[in-house]
């Protein structure tokens, strides 16, 4: 079980409280597909992904980004049991979606950059520490049921 200090929990929830899940989720997923274009392989049926503009404006990317970040919210509500929270999703990503877990790390890093761009100086080094820890824990939980 992951140990979270009171400060880490506070930093995570206070940032989360100000996050527009739809906007941030869409942006994070779009950036994943733009910065690491090979990740588009998982979204071949999403329509037009031919350019950064197309990706950023793609309604399916936006909707899926929102879905992904909403699920992150579940982790934040259950910081003391992220493993269980992601158990089914882990099976899904392995058995149905066939996603290399390395991609979870990439998305996590991108989410941190998106938060930094939204919150500027308020996204302090301590915030970054807590959030990098969180995205790492989520990535690990998502990879846990792989076989």
């Amino acid at each position: 079980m992951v140990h979270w200090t009171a400060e880490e929990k506070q930093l995570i929830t206070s940032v989360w409280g100000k996050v527009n899940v739809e906007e941030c989720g869409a942006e994070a997923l779009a950036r994943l597909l733009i910065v690491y274009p090979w990740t588009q392989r998982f979204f071949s049926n999403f329509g037009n992904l031919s350019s950064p503009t197309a990706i950023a404006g793609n309604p399916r990317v936006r909707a899926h980004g929102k879905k992904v970040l909403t699920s992150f919210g579940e982790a934040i509500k259950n910081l003391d049991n992220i493993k269980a929270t992601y158990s089914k999703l882990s099976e899904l990503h392995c058995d149905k979606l066939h996603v290399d877990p390395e991609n979870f790390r990439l998305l996590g890093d991108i989410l941190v950059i998106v938060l930094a761009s939204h919150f500027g100086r308020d996204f302090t080094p301590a915030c970054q520490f807590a959030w990098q820890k969180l995205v790492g824990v989520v990535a690990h939980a998502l990879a846990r049921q792989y076989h």
Partner: protein
Amino acid sequence: MLTCEDKKLIQAVWEKVAGCQEEVGGETLERMFVTYPQTKTYFPHFDLHHGSDQIRCHGKKVVGALGTAVKNLDNLSQALSELSNLHAYNLRVDPPCFVLQLLAQCFQVVLAAHLGKDYTPEKHAAVDKFMSAVAAVLAEKYR
């Protein structure tokens, strides 16, 4: 490979931080030490407290080196040759690309925090490619 468009975007980002290199460098290092404590093992001789002069100076050096790389995007290998030797034979930061990736992540967080919306996905992609290219050059002579 860095395309012409990538190079333009990297230079555009660089112009934005040209005036505050020391600040950007210091902040990058501080974030790296706080977020990834294992990186402190390479600086046992440094005062790593917030606001430390050593972090500020070293951060300025690091960003200065990146600036040299930005001015020599067509020939990174040659431009960073000395630094490549230093990292391979002297500093031996291990594993070569992984730790430099941590620095790159923190550098991008600082850029994003400074530039906000202006740190567009396109600039993000170009800088990410650039930092990978720099890390690859620095790791060239490891073995």
